[in-house]
């Protein structure tokens, strides 16, 4: 199989064109690297001209040696003039075009870009811009994206959630922020994603195997968060966002200021959000059989705060750009006080109910610092890109000391760990990506290398995962070959190598019955070094005739086992589970086939995207029938093991324009997973979203009179029941929920105000979400929530051109 793909590569390579006359060719992209299609290319004083194709590629033939002035013109972009010298060879130019005006006009351009991306990638891609985020603003970026088919979240409370792409999440989804892989503590269901959704310019979601481009972990898919585009020349402006939510009494703001002269620009943003306990449509919930009364339906201690600071600055000139991104995202939030995980807790109700905004224990505090530099340099036929990144993810989980298992009844004051620090994870990550994109005839080749080094240390009075260091590196080549105007062929291959080193951990307390040199203190983790390597590949096709869309992709992905899977050996007391790693796990492999078939007509369109996925060795935390009395202190043993897993499913999207301005859309998703071997043969996988669909109607009337971009929408969401469960899950009944969205742009004295409103869960329906962290203790999802946001963009100086 491997040989076959090498062969395909060679064949594609060999078709590089050669011509007698000199040719000027090139590719037009936006500053973020996306192709700009149908750009008019003309040469001053010459009759020859050309129009770029759908991939942004153009060619002008029959040029004699000399100096030429080449003009690039396209609606929505600033005109670009570039001088080129033709010597004795063909010349390739990489051109970047800036959108005509910053931010205010961003929306239309973005939508178009998304469309282009979808048409030129054989993988299943969704692209959403900042407008989508604003209209569907959820408690976190992932909750906002939840509206897309095939995308779900594992949520905890109103402000934290992590992505699930077609039922795969945790370390099987890669989140890329500004070109660098975002690294937090992805393995925890109660850990959110440390991303400020207000700073996102565009989010690209790849559903399916993408390891050949993104390396280990990109088995389920990729969420690529792109920064807002650089301001246009000679501008100075900004925007202020104000947000309010009724359910958890959230108030927040995000303020942005940007400026650019000729080459230098800066872009700064500050976001602050403060929310109280969220409320559910119930005054009493049951933890096991024990009734817990809620004051005003509020889930005690689920309040939180979030602050984010971003500072971007860069230098842009023709063929060269370098941008530094500095950001710090901090959040502090509480966990529901009456039960943590499956553990019922006795609480001081009076203390908790004094304020719905205080954050007591149990709670978490996370700080994510990031410094990234992205540099891009175009020379001859090459576009070189470099990303350098440093991240520090610092997470602390607080809880009152409880002497679980063999821990001493009183917390020893000689211990250097603070008595309320249950767990701490301190992660430093250094990343380097190098990429070269070059055009050779009808081939667009991308070759690159990535390297990442992680340094992880732990603290706290409970133990789950040992400290570890990890190094991963990979090299890839990807060819996109334009067979003709309608057919694109893709082939990619990648080699990865990784090494993980786990460090010894010893309990701070003796366990009953344990003896030896450690005085009864158990050694939970031994020093361990594992090395992994893998070759992955991908091949695909795009066929885009006028109305019909066809995409097919076949790929192999892989994932290195994480430190927790190799070295966990502790009790997760919130789940009464003793989680036991396996030092001998092999790297997880996945084969996936993807298909997209669609038809676009004037008044309607349909897209169906089925997939099939097979894992020969899926890593699964298997709940066994046993209890462990030593390392596990009497808890049920959950053992990491590997089994064959088969998954299939798909999404359906149907849009019909009913009348002018009135359109209706249906999106649906279905997923089936089955373990084909091992202890849980016949069972599915945990956190599997049920079948669901959403019917929406949206109306965009043209009112005039100072109101623009007015829209009104209603979503009717139907989710089926989920009966395919694995321990310790519970069957979740189906539900229906109605959401409303509305918004408009008001022009007051030439100053636009953009107003967005949403009502989530309009009927205050009491339902449970199968993929919620709080599902196990039967907590209903949030009740009715009115969300108001106001955006005030301003331009203090605009480009006179």
């Amino acid at each position: 199989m491997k040989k076959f793909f090498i062969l395909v590569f060679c064949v594609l390579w060999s078709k590089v064109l050669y011509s007698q006359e000199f040719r000027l060719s090139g590719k037009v992209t936006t500053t973020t690297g996306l192709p700009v299609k149908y750009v008019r290319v003309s040469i001053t004083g010459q009759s020859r001209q050309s129009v770029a194709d759908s991939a942004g590629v153009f060619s002008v033939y029959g040029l004699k040696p000399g100096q030429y002035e080449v003009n690039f013109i396209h609606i929505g972009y600033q005109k670009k003039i570039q001088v080129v010298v033709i010597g004795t060879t063909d010349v390739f130019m990489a051109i970047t075009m800036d959108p005509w005006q910053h931010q205010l006009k961003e929306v239309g351009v973005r939508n178009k870009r998304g469309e282009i991306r979808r048409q030129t990638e054989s993988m299943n891609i969704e692209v959403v811009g900042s407008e989508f985020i604003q209209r569907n603003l959820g408690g976190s970026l992932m909750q906002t994206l939840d509206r897309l088919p095939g995308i779900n979240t594992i949520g905890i409370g109103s402000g934290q959630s992590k992505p699930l792409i077609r039922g795969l999440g945790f370390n099987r989804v890669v989140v890329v922020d500004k070109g660098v892989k975002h690294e937090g503590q992805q393995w925890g269901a109660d850990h959110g994603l440390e991303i400020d959704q207000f700073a996102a310019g565009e989010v690209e979601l790849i559903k399916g195997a993408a390891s050949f481009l993104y390396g280990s972990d990109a088995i389920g898919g990729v969420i690529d968060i792109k920064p807002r585009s650089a301001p246009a020349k000679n501008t100075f402006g900004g925007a202020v966002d104000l947000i309010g939510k009724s359910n958890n009494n959230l108030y927040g703001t995000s303020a942005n200021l940007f400026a650019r002269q000729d080459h230098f620009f800066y872009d700064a943003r500050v976001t602050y959000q403060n929310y109280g306990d969220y409320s559910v449509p119930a005054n009493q919930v049951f933890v096991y059989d024990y009734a817990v009364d809620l004051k005003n339906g509020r889930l005690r201690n689920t309040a939180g705060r979030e602050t984010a600071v971003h500072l971007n600055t860069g230098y842009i000139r023709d063929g060269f750009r370098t941008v530094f991104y500095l950001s710090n995202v901090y959040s502090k939030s509480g966990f529901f006080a009456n039960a943590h995980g499956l553990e019922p807790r006795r609480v001081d109700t009076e203390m908790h109910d004094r304020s719905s905004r205080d954050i007591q224990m149990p709670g978490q505090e996370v700080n994510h610092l990031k410094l990234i530099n992205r540099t891009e340099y175009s020379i001859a036929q090459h576009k070189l890109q470099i990303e350098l990144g440093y991240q520090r993810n610092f997470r602390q989980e607080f809880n009152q000391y409880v002497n679980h298992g063999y821990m001493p009844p009183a917390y020893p004051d000689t211990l250097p760990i603070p008595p309320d620090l249950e767990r701490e994870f301190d992660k430093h990550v250094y990343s380097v990506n190098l990429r070269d994109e070059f055009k050779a005839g009808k081939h667009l080749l991308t070759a690159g290398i990535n390297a990442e080094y992680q340094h992880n240390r732990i603290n706290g009075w409970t133990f789950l995962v040992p400290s570890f260091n990890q190094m991963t590196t990979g090299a890839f080549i990807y060819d996109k070959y334009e067979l003709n105007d309608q057919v694109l062929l893709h082939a990619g291959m990648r080699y990865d190598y990784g090494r993980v080193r786990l460090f010894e951990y010893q309990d701070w307390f003796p366990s009953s019955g344990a003896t030896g040199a450690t005085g009864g203190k158990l050694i939970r983790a031994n020093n361990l070094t594992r090395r992994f390597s893998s070759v992955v590949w991908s091949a695909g096709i795009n066929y885009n005739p006028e109305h019909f869309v066809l995409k097919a992709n076949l790929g192999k992905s892989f994932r290195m086992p994480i430190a927790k899977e190799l070295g966990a050996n502790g009790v997760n007391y919130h789940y009464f589970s003793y989680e036991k790693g396996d030092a001998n796990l092999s790297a997880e492999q996945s084969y996936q086939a993807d298909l997209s078939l669609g038809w676009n007509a004037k008044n309607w369109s349909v897209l169906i995207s089925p997939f099939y996925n097979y894992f020969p060795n899926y890593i699964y935390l298997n709940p066994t029938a046993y209890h462990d009395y030593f390392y596990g202190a009497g808890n049920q043993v959950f053992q990491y093991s590997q089994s064959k897993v088969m998954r299939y499913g798909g999404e359906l999207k149907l849009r019909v324009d009913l009348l002018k301005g009135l359109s209706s859309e249906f999106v649906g998703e279905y997923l089936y997973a089955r373990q084909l071997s091992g202890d849980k043969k016949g069972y599915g996988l945990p956190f599997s979203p049920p079948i669901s669909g959403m019917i929406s109607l949206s109306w965009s009337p043209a009112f005039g009179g100072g109101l623009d971009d007015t829209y009104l929408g209603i979503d009717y969401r139907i989710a089926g029941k989920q009966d395919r469960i694995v321990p310790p899950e519970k069957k979740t009944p189906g539900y229906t929920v109605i959401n409303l969205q509305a918004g408009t742009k008001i022009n007051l004295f030439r100053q636009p105000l953009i107003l967005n409103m949403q009502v989530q869960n309009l009927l205050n329906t009491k339902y449970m979400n199968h993929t919620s962290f709080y599902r196990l203790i039967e907590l209903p999802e949030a009740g009715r929530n009115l969300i108001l946001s106001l955006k005030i963009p301003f331009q203090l100086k605009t480009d006179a051109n």
Partner: protein
Amino acid sequence: MRRINFLISPVLILFLLTNCSKDNDTATDTTYPEIDNTASDAFPKQCSIIKRGETFTFRTLLTDNSELGSVSVDIHHNFDHHTHSTEVDDCGMDPIKKAVKPFLMIRDFPIPAGSKSYQLNTEINVPADIDPGDYHFMIRLTDKQGWQTIKGLSVKIQ
């Protein structure tokens, strides 16, 4: 009319998909095992009183629809009122106090392989020199497939 069909078809597709996906998985067991201490001779029950320096008989009925796994008992103090039981009744807690020498017992009891039902009947000795007060008597029962049922009883040791 055509447009109405468009609106209805997704609902139909969804309906069909839901119905297709029902069938084939009746084989997997999704039933939790049960701990039944409602019998008159079952002990301990919620709010039972256990005497120090004596031996009591732990008696409860364990059942599962297919096959029982293992059972574990964890007796630990609740002098700090950290958690509550899984049961409805509140037993009236003693004031919060500091543990000096609390009773701690973590033990498993074998269940014969292949059992769907098992009457646990075993003696547990409580030392005389331990701290009296509020305790939790936690029973954790698994079945062969890994479903776990937890019963957390509040008991008093005097």
